[in-house]
């Protein structure tokens, strides 16, 4: 005698819909028109067979209903599209958040919130590359303004060098840090662990403070350059330190110190290296250009 709640009884569509609203995670079976008869017969045979046979087709529905992201292989376009699922307001917020470190507020938790994007890091790095190249060019021009021996050249080779330096900092340092944190995670159980994309995101946004700093370096005043570099280093270094502190604080003290100082040191190296290579101080250039004319005068 079949009861009303017999699971093998074919249920009408509306009932199934109501059941679905009650339990969002339930496996659903999509029944197309041409498959009604076989489905009914399979229904009678047993639910287990249906679930196994239809889970692949139901994955989309399930995941859409449970609000999770689909997992697509990394060689498709859609895989990268989920890293650009961002709006203009979010990008602005993240840039502001990377410039103003707030003790206790973790950039990854408060701003990224499980949605790391690649738009910010990529375009901030590109802007920084061109900003360094253009500002370096302008500052060289300004320091040599009164010098008649100086022939202005746009120096486009420096764009390539700047691009190599900035992009390798923004990609290889996060890679190394992620690998290091993963390795430490195996030794010491950490409560907090970051994915590779989140670390790339933090590093990319932390470079955003250097764009106005680099523009300030156009003015040929050494004290101004050193002031702005110190301020930029403090801000971006503290954002990075505050972000990675929760991930390493459960570890051995020596390891904590080593990791934190490595993060800060690499940041310092990048900033000072860029300043030294692209922005020469006025005293360095003069002697080089004044020597050739004296040689020309001596040879009869």
């Amino acid at each position, binding site marked *: 005698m079949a009861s009303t709640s017999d699971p093998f009884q074919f249920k009408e569509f509306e009932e199934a819909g109501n059941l679905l609203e009650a339990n969002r995670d339930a496996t659903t079976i999509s029944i197309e028109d041409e498959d009604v008869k076989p489905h009914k017969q399979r229904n009678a045979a047993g639910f287990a067979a249906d679930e196994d046979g239809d889970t692949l087709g139901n994955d989309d529905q399930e995941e859409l209903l449970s609000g999770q992201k689909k997992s697509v292989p990394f060689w498709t*376009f859609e895989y*990268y*599209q989920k*890293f*650009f699922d*961002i*709006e*203009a*307001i979010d*990008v602005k917020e993240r840039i502001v958040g990377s410039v103003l470190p707030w003790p206790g507020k973790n950039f990854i938790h408060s701003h990224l919130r499980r949605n790391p994007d690649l*738009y910010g890091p990529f*375009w901030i790095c*590109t*802007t920084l590359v*061109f900003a360094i190249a*253009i500002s370096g*060019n302008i500052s060289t021009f300004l320091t040599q303004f009164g010098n008649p021996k100086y*022939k*202005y*050249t*746009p*120096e*486009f*080779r420096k764009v390539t060098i700047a691009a190599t330096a900035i992009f390798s900092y923004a990609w290889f340092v996060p890679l190394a840090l992620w690998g290091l944190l993963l390795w430490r995670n195996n030794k010491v159980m950490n409560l907090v662990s970051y994915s590779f994309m989140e670390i790339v995101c933090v590093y990319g946004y932390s470079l955003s403070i250097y764009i106005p700093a680099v523009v300030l370096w156009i003015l040929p005043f050494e004290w101004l350059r050193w002031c702005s570099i110190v301020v930029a280093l403090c801000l971006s270094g503290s954002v990075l330190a505050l972000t990675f502190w929760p991930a390493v604080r459960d570890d051995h003290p020596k390891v904590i110190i080593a990791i934190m100082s490595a993060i800060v040191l690499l940041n310092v190296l990048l900033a000072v290296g860029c300043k030294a290579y692209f922005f020469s101080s006025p005293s360095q250039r003069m002697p080089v250009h004044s020597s050739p004319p004296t040689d020309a005068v001596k040879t009869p």
Partner: protein
Amino acid sequence: MAAAEDASRPFAGLSDVSISEDIPVEGDISVPLGSSRRDDEFSTLDEPVKETILRDLRAVGNKFIHVLYPKRSSSLLRDWDLWGPLLLCVTLALLLQGGAADSDDQGGPQFAEVFVIVWFGSIIITLNSKLLGGTISFFQSLCVLGYCIMPLTVAMAVCRVVLLSGSGTVSFAVRLAVVTASFGWSTFASTAFLADSQPPNRKALVVYPVFLFYFVIGWMILTFSP
């Protein structure tokens, strides 16, 4: 058996048919006149070469005019072509030659560098726009970005003319004004075409790379020194 005979009767008379030599087999294999006229409209094999080239040139010129007066129209997007961008890129690269030619490698951009910057930059901006969920297709976007380089190419030509008369402060001020105006024009024209393909909360994310792209090209034009 009777049915079989009935079935074979319609074909019974054919068993002794043969083609005799005095029945001429001839005819006209030409296609009837009505359909051949329709074919001529689509086939371009028979037209003179000048007509073929002029048709493409007219299409390219039409798009140039659309860039000069950027209204929100879709003809640039509908019939995209890459001839115009190629022409503009080659012209710009040629005009950027001959600058600081006697110096060492710290000179101006080489021909290949201009090409790489323009095409690689356009491809990256197009990929960015598509990843952000734009509805424009890959080649349509390349077409728009390439055509909107036209104001900057015109500015380059003007800059070279101005530089013929000297490279002092006045000429620099004139060149700066011309390049700034054409950079603004290029950015405005390309966003007029590209902005509609994005959802409104991401428009700024798509416009900024275009701004950066034309800024870099404008910088290359401004820093050109003979």
